[in-house]
């Protein structure tokens, strides 16, 4: 077993627990440091997300933290676009995908550095359906 991968997974797991983009960091480790092929890194990253997300989802459902009025339409629309863009990613050249991810990281990085503590929202959507 590769210990570097275990440590990278652990560091990103810690950051994810803080709610801070652990998934993006793992992608940076695999692509920018290890120079892994983009599609392989993406598949590993998606698999990495599954168990942790499933466990925290169980807690969130149990604690009634999920706004289903937003989640249901978002899932229905997102499933369609995810399937289409995942298909596109499988067909695209790895180099092109790598550049696209690089641009995405630059945008996210700038936003992250400029992030201020968020003020309370003006209006809040109640969780229950009326």
């Amino acid at each position, binding site marked *: *077993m590769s210990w570097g*991968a275990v*440590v990278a*997974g652990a560091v*990103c*797991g810690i950051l*994810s*627990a*803080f709610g*801070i983009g*652990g998934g*993006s*960091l*793992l*992608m*940076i480790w695999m*692509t*920018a440091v290890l120079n892994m092929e983009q*599609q*392989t890194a*993406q*598949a*590993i990253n*998606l*698999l*990495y997300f599954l168990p942790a*997300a499933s466990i925290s*989802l169980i807690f*969130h459902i149990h604690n009634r*933290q*999920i*706004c289903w009025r*937003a*989640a249901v*339409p*978002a899932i*229905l*629309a*997102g*499933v*369609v*676009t995810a399937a289409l863009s*995942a298909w596109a*990613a*499988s*067909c695209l050249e790895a180099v092109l995908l790598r*550049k*696209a*991810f*690089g641009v*995405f*990281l*630059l945008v996210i*990085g700038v936003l992250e550095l400029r*992030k201020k503590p968020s003020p309370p*929202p*003006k209006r*809040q*959507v109640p*969780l229950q359906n009326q």
Partner: protein
Amino acid sequence: MKRITWRAALSGAAAGTINGLLGAGGGMVLVPMLIGWCGLSDKHAFATAISIILPLCIVSIVVYGCHAPLPLAESLPYLVGGAVGGVIGGLLFRRVSAGILHKLLGALILWGGIRLLV
């Protein structure tokens, strides 16, 4: 149909596009949209985002798996590390300043972006 339904659907569509294409970053798009656009509180947005991203990830993985064999063996050490990290993170929660973490993360992400482009 209610306004939140459409806004949530569009937010989900944006997250799905990023998630499928780049294999990461869906939550980075979704959480701010759920808070700023759909009017969810931070806490609810974070939990709701996970409930949305999880099915999107499964769809993306299935589509990837149809094109090429999934790197299951290569993922295993990351998954083991992730489980350990999740427990440590849960124990350390609230003992670390979020402001410093965001600055560190931003710098790391920028460095990664530059390395991928240059």
